[in-house]
């Protein structure tokens, strides 16, 4: 698959997300005359059940999903990598406890724990970020732990240790750069997972609260009017699909390239 399609979609996603700050949007303005109106001149995606411009709400939804994805992925990648790296490098009882904690978190399937957490913390986008980060760090912790376990007995780490480098310096300068590739791949697929999870939580009514806009909430509101106005559901769903598909395609591509580089590096 050529790369221009996924990178194009993601660039547009990012641009739209940022443009919400500068464009003069009125996503909550109600046009009573246009309730459930199909796409046409004036509003290229039509109006929703309250007579709000779906195109503008789609932009705000892009903003929401982009911000949530950025926050959740960076938070959980940072937390998970630190925990996993320190745990594997130090070893001992600390490591055994962390492994057990990781196993317990992995026992909650999918976003079930996030649904329960977001539900109990109460609706709101900040609680969605917290819930998804609480669930998300585990993957990065497991990955970085496995990486450090295989890396920490390499010669260059031993050399640094015998030269008297501190633990923190070894972890940051000598271990982290070698773990970067798999972590970047994991984070890329993480973006797709978070976009779906945020939309899913908002679909369940646990995310963005009205009048805020999220793609998931737009789908939920639209399902009630599907027979008369299917465009309410089609537009936000297509947006989610386009973003997630692009991230997945890019992730696949990245994995192939970085893996190949790892294989070549291992041969030399």
């Amino acid at each position: 698959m050529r790369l221009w399609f996924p990178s194009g979609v993601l660039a547009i996603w990012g641009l739209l997300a940022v443009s919400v700050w500068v464009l003069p949007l009125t996503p909550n303005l109600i046009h009573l005359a246009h309730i459930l109106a199909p796409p046409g001149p004036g509003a290229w995606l039509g109006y929703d059940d309250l007579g709000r411009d779906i195109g503008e709400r789609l932009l705000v939804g892009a903003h929401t999903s982009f911000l949530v994805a950025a926050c959740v992925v960076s938070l959980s990648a940072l937390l998970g990598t630190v925990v996993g790296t320190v745990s594997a490098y130090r070893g001992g009882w600390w490591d055994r406890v962390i492994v057990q904690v990781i196993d317990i978190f992995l026992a909650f399937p999918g976003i079930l724990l996030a649904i329960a957490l977001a539900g109990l913390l109460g609706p709101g986008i900040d609680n969605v970020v917290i819930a998804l980060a609480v669930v998300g760090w585990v993957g990065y912790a497991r990955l970085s732990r496995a990486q450090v376990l295989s890396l920490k007995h390499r010669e260059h780490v031993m050399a640094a240790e015998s030269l008297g480098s501190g633990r923190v310096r070894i972890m940051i300068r000598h271990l982290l750069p070698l773990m970067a590739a798999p972590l970047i791949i994991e984070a890329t697929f993480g973006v797709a997972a978070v976009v779906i999870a945020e939309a899913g939580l908002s679909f369940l009514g646990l995310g963005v609260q009205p009048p805020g806009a999220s793609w998931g909430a737009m789908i939920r509101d639209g399902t009630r009017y599907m027979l008369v106005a299917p465009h309410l559901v089609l537009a936000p769903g297509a947006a989610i699909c386009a973003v997630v598909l692009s991230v997945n395609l890019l992730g696949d591509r990245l994995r192939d390239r970085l893996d190949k580089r790892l294989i070549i590096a291992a041969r030399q």
Partner: protein
Amino acid sequence: MFSYLAQRLAGAVLVVFGVISIVFLLIHLIPGDPVEIMLGEAASSTDREALRVALGLDQPVMLQFTHYLHGLLQFDLGTSLQSRRPVTDLLQERLPATLLLASVTLAVTLTLALPLGMLAAVRRGSAWDGGAMAFSMLGVSIPNFWLGPLLILVFSLWLGWFPVSGREGAGSVVLPAVTLGTGLAAVLSRMVRSSMLEVLGEDYIRTARAKGLPPQRVILHHGLRNALLPVITLLGLQLGALLAGAVITETVFSWPGIGLLTIEAIQSRDYPVVQACVLLISVGYVLVNLLTDIAYAWADPRIRLGGGG
């Protein structure tokens, strides 16, 4: 085999204990006073105190935890705040619907994933392969809560083949199962393809071909049977995704299972029921994975003899 079993069992018991602790702590992690959130600010202080006592929240946390564990051992999951009925009764009512949905979904997943993955592997590089992998990519990227409404739109509203929602008659399970199954089949068909490709490169496949066996027999008997082992492991892991995904899919279709119960309980702030649902789904997931591991070890001696790896 016995030491492997004991080791896996001990691990599972530890994990289940951890899961119980987290589920128990959920209610204590809520910022602020859970009683106030449940009753709202207008409640009188007598009502609050009554609920606090009813939930056992007036006691020390450790004592509450031992009470909780004690109840669990007797299958007592508390009483629903909403309907005032034992939570176990509610779960028993809803479990059959979820199990039905899960088994039909599994059937849909396998009927989609096995032929697709095999076809893609056997005709590697052909249009079939490209098509199967495009389906897989799309299937991973379509969220359940969009595919569900789309299927309702086409098959219920336009064509009128299936009911829109609820559980009426045999046809009502089809759309939820297809919704859930598509995503799972997308992941599984990729696994079938790569596992099949690996097996098809083995020497015994060349031998089977060289001695003149018909191609179907080589692919099904010599190929598929060996390619299935990693697929079974993934299937075990996916059952968890199925159960968690059921929360959203059951909501889309108003399918009266455990997932819908979870969401209803969250919306009515019925904490004991939320806790019980999360616990049931997670423990079910741990058990399924334990069984998968044991089945795998039973089928493949290399695992149980290889230091539990």
